[in-house]
């Protein structure tokens, strides 16, 4: 479980996060939604420690993460996997080397064991016969799947996804959403997904946090979102005519 208590963060003199609190439970796909520039990526980067928070606390289980130094954080980082918006695969490495990288860095497994794990992870994300390809030779959807394979190589307890559907067609987006949901359940991970893709919200939203201008405005799940009276949330989620009709019919 990850617990975030009253965190605040300013960047370049602007207050990007204001007193945000949330609890993210294991085995669930937790979504952070909000329009572009609302602060959700900063929120995610604060949770994983890529940005230092100005105030508040971030707990991983019983460990106060934000108080740990670089070396102490390493132990928790080994239990984290992250899917970045642009996949962030290492350009100079093949698919196999990318997925093997965390195993090379943090395990004492021999080459055969590592290869077996790499192939298992790649198979799990439906990538086969692509071990020798470079990231530049992959499509956007394949890159995301390889990035997921790399993220789960060390069997993490926490999975973070920053806009996993960005730049993907609707069908591939659904495949990635399903993959994230299935892997979360299989490994009983605490998964946090940043998104503004409404399909993801309706499919994966076991817990949803809506952020607007750095403040948490609403919290609930995909069923509650249809009934919500939060004006800002409704303006964001039901921005188009089809979504408005859906909300009306739900009422």
């Amino acid at each position: 479980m990850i617990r975030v208590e009253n965190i605040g963060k300013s960047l370049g003199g602007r207050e990007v996060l204001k007193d945000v609190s949330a609890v993210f439970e294991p085995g669930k796909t937790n979504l952070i939604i909000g329009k572009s520039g609302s602060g959700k990526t900063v929120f995610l980067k604060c949770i994983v420690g890529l940005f230092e928070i100005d105030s508040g606390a971030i707990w991983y289980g019983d460990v106060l993460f934000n108080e740990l130094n670089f070396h102490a954080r390493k132990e928790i980082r080994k239990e984290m996997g992250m899917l970045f918006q642009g996949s962030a695969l290492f350009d100079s490495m093949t698919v196999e080397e990318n997925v093997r990288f965390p195993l090379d860095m943090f395990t004492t497994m021999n080459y055969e064991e590592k290869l077996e794990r790499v192939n298992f992870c790649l198979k799990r994300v439906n990538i086969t016969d692509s071990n020798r390809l470079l990231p530049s030779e992959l499509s956007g959807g394949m890159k995301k799947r390889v990035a997921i394979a790399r993220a789960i190589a060390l069997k993490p307890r926490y999975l973070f996804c920053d806009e996993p559907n960005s730049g993907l067609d609707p069908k591939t987006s659904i495949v990635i959403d399903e993959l994230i949901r299935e892997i979360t359940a299989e490994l009983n991970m605490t998964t946090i997904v940043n998104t503004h893709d409404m399909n993801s919200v309706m499919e994966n939203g076991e817990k949803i946090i809506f952020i607007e201008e750095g403040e948490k405005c609403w919290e609930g799940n995909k069923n509650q979102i249809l009934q919500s009276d939060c004006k800002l949330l409704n303006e964001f989620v039901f921005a188009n005519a089809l979504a408005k009709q859906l909300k009306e019919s739900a009422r």
Partner: protein
Amino acid sequence: MTFRFLSGFGAYWMLLGKVFSRPEKPVIYYRQTMKELVSLGLRSIGIVTIISFFMGAVITLQTAYNTENPIYPTYLIGLGARDSIILEFSSTIVALILAGKVGSNIASEIGTMRVTEQIDALELMGVNSASYIILPKVVATLIFNPFLTLISIITGIVGGWLVGTTAGVITSPEYIYGIQYAFIPYYITYSLIKTLFFAFIITTVSSYQGYIVEGGSLEVGRASTKAVVYSSVFILLVNVILTQLLLS
């Protein structure tokens, strides 16, 4: 302006502190260093050889045309070319050329890693990204650049001999006598010491410029330019200091 310079200078030294911390897994760093030896070292031999050859030739011809006086013995052309090549050209000028080739390469590679979140991915895994990316480059250039300097010295002297004798400004025995006359072996040591400092400047300054990039491809391009400019300026500055310290 002064504050920006000082804060940048401080950030540079803090980055070096991260770079020279204990490697997580030495065997991985060893493999990376081997890759960098090829990428930053072996792949620079071509340009260093070509430039050194022609610079050696030009230095010989210019020395010859500027000492066309009966009171100067002809072998001085070989001596002048030798000392120019060893003392200044093969260490400093080659370092400036490498600042352009290797420096821009390093800054754009690391800058691209920064803007595509590859550095964030390393940090998130718990890898010391500065050390993992930069340390192998520093070690590789410190190992290989002295060889590039030696290659440059040899090629420059050969270029001077070949073009000098072909152009008829000096005979082969005179040139060979000249390059052996009053030879001070310490000059080679001096040149190699300078090379080590310059290699360190090129890799660390360029890596720093790439590592701190924020934004997109435009900023990566700017970082590459800054890497070359700052490396060159620091090379020239350190050259003056080292010359005074090592030759006075």
